[in-house]
């Protein structure tokens, strides 16, 4: 496991202020100190023994790190935000599009290598191109549900006569909540 990767993962629970030590740094340091202690205690043993002992002690510090990662999320004050899986449809469409495009590319390559006749190529590439165009259109139209839902909400709100969301515009162009006193982007008084 790369230790650098461990670092960029940590700050989630830690305070916004940069702490003196990243957790993994702390644990690694502790492990190394403990290993040094072990070496002193184990003086007189064969070198191989001492090396393996100190490596084991360092491994113990990783257990500490693991336990920290296990416990931290349970006690952190951060809200238990459900992991949203939005835009999945859009991702699927994008993926589908990439797939079709790649198939097209491959088809062209195969054709260039002389694996199929012009007629077959035209037929298949035509079919793929139509599909690709269809997908692009779908994506342009906002295939994702999120946009569709937002539009729908807006439409219904305006129909029911309520004040639509986000009318308190700011000079900077940001839409703010109706009861906002300051702009959430530039901070100007509304």
């Amino acid at each position, binding site marked *: *496991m790369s230790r650098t990767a461990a670092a960029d993962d940590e700050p989630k629970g830690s305070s916004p202020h940069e702490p003196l030590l990243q957790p993994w740094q702390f644990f690694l340091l502790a492990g190394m100190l403990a290993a040094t202690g072990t070496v002193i205690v184990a003086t007189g043993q064969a070198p191989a023994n001492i090396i393996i002992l100190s490596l084991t002690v360092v491994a113990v510090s990783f257990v500490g790190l693991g336990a920290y990662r296990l416990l931290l999320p*349970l006690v952190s004050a951060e809200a*238990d935000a459900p*992991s949203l899986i939005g835009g999945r449809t859009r991702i699927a469409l994008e993926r589908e599009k990439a797939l079709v495009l790649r198939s097209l590319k491959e088809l062209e390559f195969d054709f260039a290598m002389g694996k199929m006749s012009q007629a077959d190529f035209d037929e298949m590439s035509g079919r793929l191109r139509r599909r690709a165009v269809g997908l692009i259109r779908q994506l342009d139209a906002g295939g994702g549900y999120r946009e569709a839902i937002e539009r729908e909400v807006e439409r219904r709100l305006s129909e029911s006569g309520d004040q639509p969301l986000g009318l308190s515009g700011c000079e900077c162009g940001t839409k703010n909540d109706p009861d906002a006193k300051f702009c959430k982007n530039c901070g100007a008084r509304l």
Partner: protein
Amino acid sequence: MASLGEYLLLLTFVIAAYAVAASVAGARRRSTRLIESGIGAFYTVAALMTVASGVIIYAFVAGDYSIRYVQRYSDSVQPLFYKITSYWGGLDGSVMFWVFLLSIFGSVAVRVNRQRHRELIPYVVAVIATVEMFFLFLMIIHNNPFATYLTESPTDGRGLNPLLQNFYMAIHPPTMYLGFVGLTIPFAFGMAALFTGYLDDSWLRAVRRWTMFSWFFLSLGLTLGMLWAYEELGWGGYWGWDPVENAGMLPWFTATAFLHSVMVQERRGMLRVWNVSLVIITFLLTIVGTFLTRSGVVQSIHAFGEDPELARYFVAFMVSTTVFSFGWVIYRLPLLKARHELDSWASKEAAFLANNWVLLFSALFVLFATLFPTITEAINGERLTVGPPFFNRWMVPIGLILLLLTGVGPLLAWRKTTLTNLRDQFLWPVVSALVVAGTMLALGVRVWSSGLCFALSAFVMGTITQEMVRGANVRRGMTGTDILTAMIGLVGRNKRRYGGYIVHVGIVLMFLGFAGEGFSRDQQLLLKPGEEATVGGYTLHLDAIRVTDDGQKQMVTGHVTVKDASGAVIEQMRPAKWFFRKHEEEPTTEVAIRRSFAEDLYIVMPAFEIEEQTASVEVHINPLVNWVWFGFGILALGTGIALLPETAVTFAVARLPAEAVTASLLILSLLLSGGVARAQHVETGQDPRLQLTSPEAREISQKLACWCGGCSKLPVGQCSCGHCAIERAKIDVMLKEGKTEQQILDHYVTTYGGNQILSEPPNSGSGRVAWLMPIVVGGGGFLMAAFLALRWSRRPSLAGVPAGIEDPEMAARLDEELRNLD
């Protein structure tokens, strides 16, 4: 120390259980905190297993013989390297090593995919942690590596089996484990996709690399095993279809099938059910492999001994995994339904379908034939032997079909290859195959399997060369560079495709090596010092038999001078027998090998008579065998290219040599580890007779299986143990008495009270099942695949998009996007 280890295992079990609970609960409640905590627990398991491994290695190195496992597998005089590798030398430790590797692999896989496959991760954690729990449970309940002696503890250990104190034996098991363990990761992702219902191909992208990586280690492990068998066992071959070799082969077949069928799903969205099932089957087969090695269900030189209780645990685990995972597949069938459209028979999809079926059939056949003796014994108490001749009878044609498909597949286009263009595509490969076949015939090669193999190899090489050259030409036309740059660009742009082709080249080279076996010759010589004999162009002159002692062992060495046809001395070879102190009753046979790319001269001295100064010398001439190892080097190179990250196009060229060098260096170091290899083979202490066997007797003895227990039931005609030497001599006597082959075989069947002495099951009684199975399953499966393909190809193609004239604006945009794709 011991109790510390024990507590660590217990704690790991608890943490793994927590990881399962927290991840599943977190995923169900959509609670990031629980999921994060579960992942933390998962990492903790890896850390704890590292500590536990450290503890047991320390116990080995420090010589804590109060721990039984340490006492049984090491002693104080053992070199440090073997003390450390003793960790996985026995049953209990190997289970622990397994969990250790799995926890590390799992952590890395979770770490890498945490962001990209957020919704799958909790279930991946749960599945892997469950598998870890099973093995931890085994250790805690049944195979505790930290178990101590209850009363007085011995002062020294029993020592690792001398046979295992060998470089290959130290690295072969871990590479196999890496392959096996790595295949758990695709399984975990597949299951997670089933749980969550996100069955598009995103999970495939997460596991493709892992499968390739594990597949590579599996191939490496198998090759190392072959090398070991070749250099150690002294019978001149490298693959004996031993149950445990087969166990390693099983997941290799299905993983190979998966690596190919993944492409079909990625490109065409077909075969979704099939891919999930393949991943599950592959995982199950790795567990079957572990089960076969560790339960003593099958007789094998690798087996750790019989253990019915362990067998029960494994069976319970396998059955519940099978029911559970396939239950989910059935539950998700509606989601797994995919567009099935097979445009044409002459398409890559159809070729992949065939390839998958052949590979799956291979796995089924090998599994069946391995378990057949156990099954018949359980059903009607009749113990039969399924020896190497039976495997070869079926696997040689299967291998050749696979080789043919290797050549055909790349020539076909996705969806549909136009028939008129087929001729153009197949022309050169077929011509090269025909040329080679004609040359073979002209040279008088009459071994059909090898001849066909050479022709097919030429066909595949023709295919690959044509693909590379034509591809490069097309690219040159597009980019306007010279052909070499175009070729590098080609490989760089589509690393998986061309890396795959390079793997195919490696496979072809390995097949060349296999085909060489058809021309191998062996001869037994009886020589006294000063005498010489000629075998296949080599003249062997026995100079002396010398006895030396280096304090650790007594060595009886035959000094053999090898001359070529012109009489010039080309090599001094030293086949030997070593008698280790404390192990005098188990002398080891030292093989002497003279390697070259054309053929190996392989000399063993199975018996000698010091007083009369006579040595029995077995000479094997193995043509092309080194191409097997060399082919693996190429395969490794190809895998390395295919594994390069997608974005690494720019430094593909810079990084490629590094990968190539590592892989080739490894192979070269194995190849060149001395022109004359030293190897060991422990034998039973019987005194083999110094007697020449007539060719007729050898012929008959090929049909009998050796039951010495030191080999994998090789034919008596091949095994170099003393027992077989005696049997061969007996057959000689019987032949002189005028007995026919059938009478001799019948004599053996009555003497041994059953057909198990025959190296192939008889084609009658319960043995007939073994003969029918390949035909029934192979044929049935073929018909089923054909039926499915027919059904899919008949279905009207669902383009799903209204036909219409493309509007020019969209067409331009599409072209733009296509250009940017490069």
